[in-house]
């Protein structure tokens, strides 16, 4: 794939119009707002940075890379099971699986062979379809380079948080774009460094928020 074609493919798959279902998740932000822990754009920026540095860079990125580097069903299943075991808040697990399966549906509909195989794994109960490993497998299957794949994965997380912030009336569209511009440097910094050997994550505030979300009465998002 030429650079221009790779760029266009990434733009298309990262576009909010691509039916990947990302709009349904706040990854804890909704409860943090409700609990008064995040009140403004600065809080959204801090939340996004925390998610990128302490979860995406250390866990999601590692798992997406591993899924992209193999074409073996059994290894994909193992990665999916490991990510499931590492995702300790119930709504984080269900959110990751819902988003992963939405991405699978879209790519399977477009004839991506990796997505078709992954859907079979999910249907057979051999995988739950966690988003990072699905992203790695499906995007690599569509010909993306690792660098583009990683960038897109990080970007969709940041973009999803920015969209959630707008829907929660924390920011307007312009401030959300300013936040995304800020985290661009964070993403570039993360990607310039090698990934850790073993996946790990430490986002206690967001984890607790997702746990509390399970018992929330009014819920705009799925987590």
């Amino acid at each position: 794939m030429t650079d221009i074609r790779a760029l266009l493919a990434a733009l298309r798959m990262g576009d909010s119009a691509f039916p990947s279902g990302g709009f349904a998740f706040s990854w804890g932000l909704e409860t943090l707002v409700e609990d008064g822990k995040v009140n403004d754009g600065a809080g959204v920026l801090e939340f996004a940075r925390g998610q990128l540095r302490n979860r995406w860079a250390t866990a999601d990125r590692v798992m997406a890379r591993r899924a992209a580097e193999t074409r073996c069903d059994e290894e994909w299943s193992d990665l999916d099971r490991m990510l499931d075991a590492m995702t300790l808040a119930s709504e984080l697990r269900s959110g990751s699986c819902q988003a992963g399966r939405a991405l699978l549906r879209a790519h399977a509909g477009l004839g991506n062979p990796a997505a078709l195989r992954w859907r079979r794994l999910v249907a057979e109960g051999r995988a739950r379809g966690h988003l990072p490993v699905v992203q790695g497998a499906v995007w690599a299957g569509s010909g993306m380079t690792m660098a583009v794949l990683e960038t897109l994965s990080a970007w969709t997380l940041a973009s999803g948080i920015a969209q959630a912030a707008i829907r929660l009336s924390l920011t307007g569209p312009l401030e959300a774009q300013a936040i995304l511009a800020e985290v661009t440097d964070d993403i570039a910094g993360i990607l310039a460094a090698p990934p850790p050997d073993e996946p790990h994550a430490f986002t206690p505030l967001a984890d607790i928020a997702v746990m509390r979300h399970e018992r929330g009465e009014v819920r705009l998002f799925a987590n």
Partner: protein
Amino acid sequence: MTGDDRQLALDFARAPSGRTFLKRQYVAFPFHLTRPFDDGHGLFVILQSLGAGLLQGDRFAAGIVAGEGTRVTIRTQGATIAHAMPADDAWQHVRLDAHPGSRLVWQPRPLVLFPGARVRTSLEVVVHDGADVMWCDAFLPHDAGDPGKHFTSLQSETVVRADDGTLMALDRARTTGRDLACAGVAVHGTIGLVGGGAAAPGLADILSEAVMLSGAYSGVSSLPGECGLLVRILADDGAMLARAVDDVMTAVAQCPRSVL
């Protein structure tokens, strides 16, 4: 770190009377075991440290086996202080084996991380069919009168496996004192429950309400595969954490089919 490297090995068994007793023990420095006693719910053991805490180069390992049908609670008497470690880090590893029908509670006091501390801590929980295990894991940074100084690093891992080796849950974190300070995290605590006792109807809601009484920011959720529950706690200080842990323990103890 396993086998002969251990400084502590405790093996609990069930007597024909139904009571739990300490069948075998190996206790080496820095550990010291007080005399176990029956608290009416099972055998209660207090573990003490004769050392100054964790120092650079320390490699501590402990193994605790709750035999079939036993009921055991193990607590440490005080917090563990991790001192500055300029030349090497410190490791501590604990393995819990809960055999069929056993109920095992592992409740160490928090790890207190002084400036310059570098610690790797791991807890391995092996759960057999019909066993219940409850564990606590907490840490807090402490500047030891040197404001602006932070612990260097903490690598923490809790892995829960079935007796056939199947991975049930993995809580693996790495952080630094500077990152915690930036995130405004004072005290971090986790309480985990696995086994049938954790599946008691409504227990998650009961624990959620109980832990909030302490004033800590907290949440409760089911673990992967509905194998148990996890309570996460962010507290302002050690006293708030202690209240939160006590509130959870009390709520669990009052629940039918309790782990305690």
